[in-house]
């Protein structure tokens, strides 16, 4: 049953392509037929992580809009690239989608490492699944209470401070190096494997400064376990509105955000992409989803597939620029 309607969709599309007719009618008709079977949403991180939770919240709502289950499938590994490599190799029929973060979309490739796919050639961007800032936080007992003071400490003694990130070439590492480079100071980089051990060590006072994701950091700040100096996003975080942005701290124009893109294999029909984009945007306007986004510190981001592609281009220009400026690519 599902196979039949699928074939019809493809035939209809082929006919349209051959006739060179990009009529709205046919597009709308096949959009109504999509989806006719469950959709798989591939997440490149293990279940329970922040990316996974975002994906599940959105998948839950998109299931309602699309009328077919959107099932999250975890294919964790190598900064999310294992999952995206799987999506890139799937059929471009809109039934295999991926959640692609900063690392899988830009950083891993920009650092000169093999991802197993060529993002632009093998994937289409359908939409943005929310954006999130990083928190620059310090252990209790550091003398500095503001970002300028922290920078001054590092300027006075290049061996005074160490900072932890969730890994080499992760947004936290690059965002901090970018900041240190702008400020012209040095701190010792200590890479961790993810946010969890990093949080452990900054709470325990083993590392001085850490770049942490917003919701977890906000909770620790509220409990008094760490001190927040600044957020890396261009706007203040609704979870900790009293903490200034890095830009406000004297680094005009500084911006580093985390985000996830909804991607499909290259060649996914436009009408299918439009249907998915609509469902994604509808989810990011739903009250329940917005509430969940707020508690996760996520800003909803509504885009068309074209706007999302442009968003990726802008972000790539920013991050590649940072990597180039720092001279850390291989």
């Amino acid at each position, binding site marked *: 049953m599902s196979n039949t309607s699928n074939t019809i969709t493809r035939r209809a599309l082929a006919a349209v392509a051959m006739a060179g007719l990009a009529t709205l009618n046919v597009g709308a008709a096949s959009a109504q037929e999509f989806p006719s079977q469950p959709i798989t949403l591939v997440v490149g991180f293990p279940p329970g992580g922040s990316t996974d939770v975002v994906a599940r919240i959105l998948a839950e709502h998109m299931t309602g809009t699309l009328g077919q289950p959107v099932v999250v499938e975890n294919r964790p590994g190598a900064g999310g690239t294992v999952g995206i490599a799987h999506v890139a190799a799937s059929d471009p029929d809109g039934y295999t989608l991926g959640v692609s973060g900063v690392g899988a979309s830009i950083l891993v490739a920009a650092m000169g490492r093999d991802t197993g796919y060529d993002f632009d050639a093998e994937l289409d961007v359908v939409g943005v699944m929310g954006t999130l800032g990083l928190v620059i936080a310090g252990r209790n007992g550091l003398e500095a209470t503001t970002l300028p003071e922290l920078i001054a400490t590092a300027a006075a003694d290049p*061996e005074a401070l160490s900072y932890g990130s969730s890994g080499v070439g992760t947004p936290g590492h690059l965002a901090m190096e970018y900041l240190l480079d702008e400020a012209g100071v040095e701190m010792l980089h200590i890479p961790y494997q993810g946010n*969890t051990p990093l949080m452990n060590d900054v709470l325990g006072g083993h590392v001085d400064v850490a770049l942490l994701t917003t919701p977890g950091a906000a909770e620790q700040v509220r409990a008094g376990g760490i001190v927040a100096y600044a957020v890396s996003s261009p706007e203040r975080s609704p979870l900790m509105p009293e903490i200034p942005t890095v830009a406000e701290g004297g680094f005009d124009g500084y911006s580093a955000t985390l985000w996830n893109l909804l991607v499909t294999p290259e060649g996914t029909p436009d009408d299918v992409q439009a249907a998915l984009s609509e469902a994604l945007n509808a989810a990011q306007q739903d009250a329940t989803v917005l*509430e969940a986004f707020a508690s996760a510190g996520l800003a909803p981001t509504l885009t068309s597939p074209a706007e999302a592609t442009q968003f990726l281009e802008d972000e790539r220009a920013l991050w590649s620029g940072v990597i180039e400026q720092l001279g850390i690519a291989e």
Partner: protein
Amino acid sequence: MWENILLGFATAMTVENLMYCFVGVFLGTFIGVLPGLGSLAAISMLLPMSFYLEPTTALILLAGIYYGGEYGGSIASILLNLPGTPSAAVTCLDGNPMAKQGRAGVALFVTAIASFVGGSVGVVALMGFGPSIAQLGLSFGPADYFALMLLGLVAAVTVGGGSLVKGLIMVVLGLLLGTAGTDVTSGEFRYTFGFLELRDGVSLVAIAMGLFGIAEVVSSVREAGTRKITEKVTMRSMMPTRADMRRTVGPMARGSSIGGFLGALPGAGTVIAAFLAYATEIRVAKDKTRFGKGAVEGVAAPESANNAAAQTAFIPTLTIGIPGSATMSIMLGALMIHGITPGPLLVTDHPTIFWGLIASFWIGNLFLLVLNIPLIGLWVKVLQFPYKYIYPVVIALICIGVFSMRTSVFDVGLVVIFGGLGYLLQRTGYSAAPLILGFVLGPMLEENLRRAMLMARGDAMRMVSDPVTGSILGLSAAMLIWAIYGGVRNVIRSRQVKDIPPGET
């Protein structure tokens, strides 16, 4: 304090929560028994259910699967030498020899009791000292972790019985396997041979299931036609003797303490807890030769340790919001789906979740005990089943289980390779257990040593001079000297024995 505990039991005792607790531990036991299918896979699959459940109820269900799985993992280890979970690999060492001696019922009974004791100790630690244990865990820095892992490695050499040299070889092999993957300090790929699947290292489950599961099946095929165990199970044969019970008291106490402590350290986990508890028993035992041949202590200690660790793993997870393992991250994910961000204020902001969950742990452990003692007879019947039916099912389950961990076909291929290696090791008399521990500890050892050296800016003396790090390192040195001394003494003794004329020994 008492109010909180009462609040907890009031939350956990609602009909709905009791039901989900029972479903959780039952499902967990069942999945734990199936080789290769770990609780992680089951919890991942059931995570979407938490959308439709109260957060407390969702956690009670997921947690029940987790610690139920820890218990269930030992059943197949004892009966078929097939560890259901990597931490149950230790239980194979003495549990399976017991089964081969017709004492499977006793081994399962001891497992049930030891698991209950370990679990209860863990729950008490969680209730009474949760936040302070969490603070202690935080004070452990990279250098301390390194020292602790080193202690674990030194202990590992003694696991597996028999030759010290063979143990050492296996530990080193495990360490080498652990070096494959992405180097944390530089981000470079190491020993991935161009396979992108190896960027995160070799899968632990693939190694454990290959070396133990597949290898066991392959070596049993040789005798599958002839081997028949028609053991009659009576209630009497299930009950441990008075001597058995006396022997298990000490191991359970030591195992629970070791497991309880290690479980609370993020990252250390149940595998290390089980191994260290076992190694400790060998160290303190008067007659070390009994281990590996069906010593009841060798079942009681690791079982109490991994169940205690399974409970105390919730300490850093719930009291400071730091999940110690992949499974714990899923638990926190279930809270995040409900918009609750885990952190140090969870206990005060959401007391019903915290105390309700802890109370359910103890109820769940009681369920496990009540559920499993009557089931022992049923489990033992598995042994009477012809192996030609069991083994194909086992292989299929292992493949499904390994695949489900990372949705990776590559890992299934690895299982086959490690199965071959495991068979080879078995035929040549090498124990795979130290390899597993070396593999688990190696990457953590390296990562923490390098991080500690980075923080000390290359000054190794800073590590030795730290009181905590220094004393743990000292303990490792003492254990090593003890082991070498014991080894030398044994060699001398065995030479003396050989001098005695035949007929007089």
